[in-house]
């Protein structure tokens, strides 16, 4: 055959040109040529007959082999092949979400949440009704956590001096470090922790301190300063936490802070406040707020004192003095008189709460007032500190900085936190950190600290990890993963366990903690606690403390009015201490009072700013004690005079593609001595300007009937029936359900939880600062904020505005292609696929709740990763209008569930996302055809009114007027003349 291949002899033998031939067959004779061709092209010459079975069989085998390629074990970061289930795991139906109870952290304390996971993918977070810090409500941070889980900027591999390393290398370094530490008793090892109420971390730290007695331990969190414990130590001789019970309170006085809307207990306090406010047969509670920086609690207060920190302190002293005896001295604050009179009347049903930023003295005075009132056991209780105080106490960041400067630190472990960014400016911590010979950081991001450390290990996100956290009242809750780890990472618990030479995974470590506690009952309690999210009966019992009647506050350290300007620092309502900076939902969340997005500003009273010739957007240089920061100014009506508020958490240098280089870094001006307020700050206008982005530009209601306010004391007006003006079009008839919503403006605090809940539920896109500046934010639910009254001391009103689902919807008649139509249950429905984008519906919507997709916002630099999208809700594309649907997919799910059981949808069974998130239950949704429903009940209230009802739109969403009460001693002009 070999010579056949070369050439057939017959062909070769033929002398060229001797005869004409048409084909090799002709030339060489058929048989020879066929053999030649067979040799040359084996298959085409003699095609093997492939039957259908054979072909299908081979195809199936190839596909199966190709599929096997995807099962390679080592490709999966979670270490196990991801195969489909031949049989479904119990309880799991594809497309039906599972809920995992877990705890999310804020201020080191847990807030119980339910994570909704669809086919293994967490897409929504709701409050855990069983958890004392949530009661089913959430805040914006908890809602946004699901976006952080999928953040593409999360750190996904260990790194050493900026280079990616393998986990094997990383663990070798950790093990060596641990071994070295254990052999030397921990000498030279410094560990920096975030204060956190985690029993497992506490257990591991205690064990480590036992094994490594020479190691030094420090804690740091930018917002935890320990003044409350110092204060209770002053008054009671021991550090104590306080837990309020606002459901019992008739008079609430807050000294700074933002009791109802900020911090680890805020969701609960807001819920309690709302419950007390709606308590039948009891007069409205009185809320007094003295503060230097406007807060949402202050905005809700019946009487507010906006004043520099010293005046707030003076007010606290005067209240205590009033309660202890009639010391009628001159120069008393009207605020203090009114508050004290009301507190005295309320007795044990009064309570005073001091904010975290208040100095020790004010906190101590608050304790003393509560003691004077006998509030303990009624409106508040003292408990042991929930974030355990170690013995010996751990050092502060300042002492760690000292140790580094002295060169004593050989190895530094930074377990969470971001001190290179959020350390006070005077410590110069970034510089010090880079001097440490061996430093290791664990965190979810390659942040400022990670970059400066020798080693960085990625940490799991809260929704991927095991753990445990105590709530503000001591109740412990378990944290469980709601998904497989999306990236290969570790946890603080695991790292600590390795350092002490007892490695284990976080799951086992947490179990070990509770096994110690529960003993034999472990199996039963573990599952129950996982399911509930809380460990039953784990709340700390109240501590009986002696009434501090003998305690005297002493005189103010430096009396008189402060010289010059004061700067106070506050956590940011959008990014908190900076940890949420790379979360696009939160960056684009309008701050409650300023409605600013994508940055922060130095907030000032208009009069104060005018004294420096500053307008909103002007840059000013703030200098104090060698530290300075240049910040844009924002004129905020009602701000305390001669005080500037700077919110922390912006000006991140290495937050990620969303959060870096937004706003200014107020930490640069903060000092470790006075972390919350600095006096005598120099302010110089630099002449530069910065464009500040905001979603609301007009702050007055222009005398229009937009937010209605009723006097609480006045007899309620008769119920106003729905306005029915003549209409060209026939009425719709609703035989079954007719959905409607009622929003109680008296309960709305403006906290923004509903805004993010709506965004997360309905796949509302992030558009970015430039687009917001053009007026193109996409929020389906916005909270309008209005000021009324004098510029120095205005009333602040909030009004959540979403699609009103008008009965006579103006948008429906003007759409030329019938893309927005009325449903049989009264919803105003938007058909995205029919919309051609004339936008005329938005023109005709008097509420301006319709949003237009100017671009493909799903594919722009700021857009959320695809994984976070709720699979139940269509993602809208370019060129179509969108708006609130009343969570129509939830209605559909409820209808199916009810239909399977052949019953109508029960009242309360169906909640919209905004309603579910609202801590105060200000939003109620339901069937207005059912006279017994909660929403029908609310709509029957004399306070019920339709926004712009005179246009005959007949909105399905109505509002309940806010109630106002003015304390008797209120003077004209409000609190501003108190400050003089």
């Amino acid at each position, binding site marked *: 055959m070999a010579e056949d291949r070369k050439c057939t002899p017959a062909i070769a033998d033929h002398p060229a040109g001797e005869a004409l031939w048409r084909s090799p067959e002709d030339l060489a004779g058929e048989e020879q040529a066929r053999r030649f061709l067979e040799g040359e092209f084996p298959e085409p010459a003699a095609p093997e007959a492939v039957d259908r079975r054979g072909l299908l069989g081979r195809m199936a085998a190839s596909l199966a082999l190709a599929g096997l390629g995807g099962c390679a074990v080592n490709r999966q970061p979670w270490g196990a092949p991801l195969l489909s289930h031949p049989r479904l795991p119990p309880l799991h139906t594809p497309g039906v979400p599972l809920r995992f109870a877990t705890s999310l952290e804020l201020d080191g304390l847990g807030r119980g949440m339910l994570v909704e996971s669809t086919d293994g993918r967490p897409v929504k977070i709701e409050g855990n009704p069983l958890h004392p810090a949530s009661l089913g409500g959430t805040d914006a941070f908890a809602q946004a956590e699901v976006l952080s889980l999928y953040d593409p900027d999360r750190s996904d591999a260990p790194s050493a001096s900026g280079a990616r390393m393998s986990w094997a290398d990383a663990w070798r370094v950790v093990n060596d470090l641990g071994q070295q530490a254990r052999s030397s008793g921990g000498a030279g090892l410094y560990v920096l922790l975030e204060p956190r109420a985690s029993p497992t971390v506490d257990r591991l730290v205690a064990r480590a301190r036992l094994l490594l007695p020479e190691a030094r331990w420090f804690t740091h969190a930018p917002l935890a300063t320990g003044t409350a414990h110092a204060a209770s130590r002053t008054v009671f001789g021991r550090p104590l936490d306080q837990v309020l019970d606002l459901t019992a309170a008739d008079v609430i006085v807050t000294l700074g802070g933002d009791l109802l809307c900020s911090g680890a207990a805020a969701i609960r306090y807001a819920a309690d406040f709302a419950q007390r406010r709606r308590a039948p047969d009891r007069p409205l509670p009185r809320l007094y707020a003295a503060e230097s920086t406007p807060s949402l609690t202050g905005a809700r207060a019946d009487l507010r004192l906006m004043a520099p920190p010293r005046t707030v302190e003076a007010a606290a002293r005067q209240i205590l003095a009033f309660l202890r005896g009639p010391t009628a001295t001159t120069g008393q604050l009207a605020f203090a008189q009114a508050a004290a009179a009301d507190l005295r009347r309320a007795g044990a049903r009064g309570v005073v709460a001091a904010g975290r930023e208040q100095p020790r003295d004010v906190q101590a005075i608050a304790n003393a007032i509560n003691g004077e009132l006998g509030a303990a056991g009624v409106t508040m209780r003292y408990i042991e500190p929930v974030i355990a105080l170690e013995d010996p106490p751990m050092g502060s960041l300042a002492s760690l900085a000292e140790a580094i400067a002295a060169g004593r630190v050989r190895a530094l472990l930074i377990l969470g936190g971001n001190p290179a960014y959020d350390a006070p400016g005077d410590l110069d911590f970034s510089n010090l950190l880079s001097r440490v010979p061996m430093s290791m950081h664990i965190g979810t991001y390659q942040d400022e600290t990670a970059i400066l450390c020798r080693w960085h290990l990625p940490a799991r996100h809260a929704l991927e990890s095991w753990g445990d956290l105590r709530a503000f009242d001591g109740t412990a809750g378990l944290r469980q993963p709601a998904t497989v780890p999306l990236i290969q990472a570790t946890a603080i618990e695991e790292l600590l366990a390795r350092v002490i030479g007892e490695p284990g995974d976080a799951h086992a470590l947490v179990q070990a903690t509770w096994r110690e506690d529960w003993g034999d009952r472990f199996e039963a309690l573990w599952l129950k606690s996982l399911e509930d999210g809380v460990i039953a009966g784990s709340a700390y019992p109240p501590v009986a403390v002696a009434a501090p009647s003998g305690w005297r506050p002493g005189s103010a350290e430096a009396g008189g009015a402060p010289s010059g300007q004061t700067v106070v620092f506050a956590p940011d309502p959008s990014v908190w201490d900076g940890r949420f900076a790379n979360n696009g939902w939160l960056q684009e969340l309008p701050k409650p009072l300023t409605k600013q997005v994508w940055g922060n500003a130095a907030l000032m009273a208009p009069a104060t700013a005018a004294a420096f010739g500053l307008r909103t957007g002007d840059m000013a240089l703030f200098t104090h004690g060698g530290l300075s920061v240049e910040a844009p100014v924002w004129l905020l009506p009602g701000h305390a005079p001669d005080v500037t508020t700077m919110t922390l958490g912006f000006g991140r240098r290495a937050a990620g593609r969303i959060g870096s280089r937004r706003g200014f870094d107020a930490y640069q001006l903060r000092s470790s001595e006075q972390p919350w307020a600095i006096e005598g700050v120099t302010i110089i206008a630099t002449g530069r300007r910065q464009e500040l982005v905001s979603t609301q*530009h007009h702050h007055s209601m222009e005398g229009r009937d937009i937010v209605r306010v009723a006097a609480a004391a006045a007899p309620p007006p008769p119920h106003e029936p729905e306005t029915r003006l003549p209409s060209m079009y026939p009425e719709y008839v609703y035989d079954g359900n007719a959905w409607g919503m009622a929003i109680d403006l008296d309960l709305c605090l403006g906290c923004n939880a509903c805004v993010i809940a709506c965004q997360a539920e309905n796949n509302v896109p992030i558009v970015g600062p430039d687009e917001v500046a053009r007026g193109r934010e996409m929020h389906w639910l916005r909270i309008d904020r209005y000021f009324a009254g004098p510029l120095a001391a205005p009333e602040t009103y909030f009004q959540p505005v979403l699609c009103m689902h008008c009965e006579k919807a103006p948008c429906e008649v003007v759409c030329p292609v019938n893309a927005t139509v009325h449903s049989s249950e009264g919803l105003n429905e938007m058909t995205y696929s029919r919309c051609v984008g004339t936008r005329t519906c938005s023109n005709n919507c008097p509420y301006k709740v319709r949003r237009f997709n100017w671009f493909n916002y799903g594919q722009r630099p700021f857009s959320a990763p695809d994984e976070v999208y709720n699979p139940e809700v269509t993602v809208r594309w370019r*060129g179509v209008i969108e708006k609130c649907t009343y969570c129509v997919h939830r209605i559909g799910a409820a209808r199916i569930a009810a239909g399977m059981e052949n019953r109508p949808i029960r009242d309360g069974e169906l909640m919209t996302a905004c309603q579910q998130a609202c801590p105060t239950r200000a939003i109620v949704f339901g069937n207005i055809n059912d006279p017994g429903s909660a929403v029908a009940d609310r709509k029957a209230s004399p306070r019920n009114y339709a926004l*712009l009802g005179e246009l005959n739109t007949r909105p399905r969403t109505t509002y309940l007027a806010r109630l106002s009460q003015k304390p008797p001693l209120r003077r004209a002009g409000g609190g501003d003349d108190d400050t003089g």
Partner: protein
Amino acid sequence: MTTPAETSASEVASIPLSPEFGWGWLLALAASAFMVLVLAYSIGALVFIGVGVWGTNVPFVWGFDLTNYVWWIGIANGSTLFAAILVLRRHSLRTAINRFAEGLALFAVICAGIFPIFHLGRPWLFYWMFPYPATFEVWPQFRSPLTWDFWAIITHLIVTTMLWYVGLIPDLATLRDRARPLAAKRVFAAFALGWRGSLRHWALHQRAYRLVAVAVIPIALVIQSTVAFEFSVTLVPDWHETRLPLHYVVSGLESGLALILLAAAILRGSLRLERYISVEDLDLIGKLLLANSLVVGYVHMGEIGSALLAGSYTQTATINRLVGDYAGLYWGAIALTVLLPQALWSPSVRASNPGCILIGLGVTAGVWLDRLSIVVGGLQRDYLPSMWRMYAPTQPEWYLYLGTIGLFAALFLLFVRYLPVISMSETRHDEHREARS
């Protein structure tokens, strides 16, 4: 032997038939062709990137798009209406003006039509406005003023084309007879519809022409009102006004007249048509424009008066348009559409080419400001102050606007080059009459 009439008709005909047209024309065409390229670019940006390239937002969902649309439609309506009236009145002016007035109207409709289509979020689906029997059995929303307007534009395009084309038929036949290149001859022949100039043809032609002209008058008024309905039917306080259709009709007519004055003055100068577009003609249009401007002034006074008498929302919104952030637009419009034409009281201004050009340009620009003042300024103060914002156009919006002006200019330049810009048949007719008398 040629009659004087033959000579003059030849002169007019010689323009489209001559192989050369001068460098001025070429330069102008090149400039406008460049603008058409800009138009193509800005439309491409809209289609491929999105309507977000504009400065529009919520609540200003419409900006330059509707402003320019209303402006062009106004010009088209004004010119058509004017031409139709001349036809019906058999006014001597019609010889000079009609043909290019009709042409201007047609080109303006074409420019106007660009905006409603490309302002859509998804312009490729614009045909959903049309009530075709779709498989999913969804029909347009017949209650929507945008649906009405869709029909208005279609009607406008058909009627304007008819008026222009019917008047052009005898001249097309002349061109057919005189064209030298065979290809041009064939094109003219096809469009001349076999015109032989028989008496019967003339009689039918006159009847058809006047019939279309009669149809134009109500249609132009209705169409301009329908455009106004897009605004006045909404709930927007400043727009929800019964006076708005009248406002649009009157100022639309004014912009049409101004453009005719402008074009007449330009043609007179550049094509040496002084004999056909006489000073008397300019004088007459000038007087009409002056009268129209007085009516526009009256309408504006009514606007202010009714705003003062209106409910609080309307009052706030309208007064804000007069004194608020966009007040410049309003007062600019007043200055250019009401005050500037007062110069036409002077006969010497009416007789001067530069004067007419200046006033024509000024009034056209003034009506554009008026449209912008309504579309943008009218939206600034609606119901909820929380959504009170500002709007500023972006470069792509300017490009699109300038692009349509380029398209308009290009079409006009091609028209004067390839078709008789003055009606030859009418000129002949007039001159015969003059010769007889």
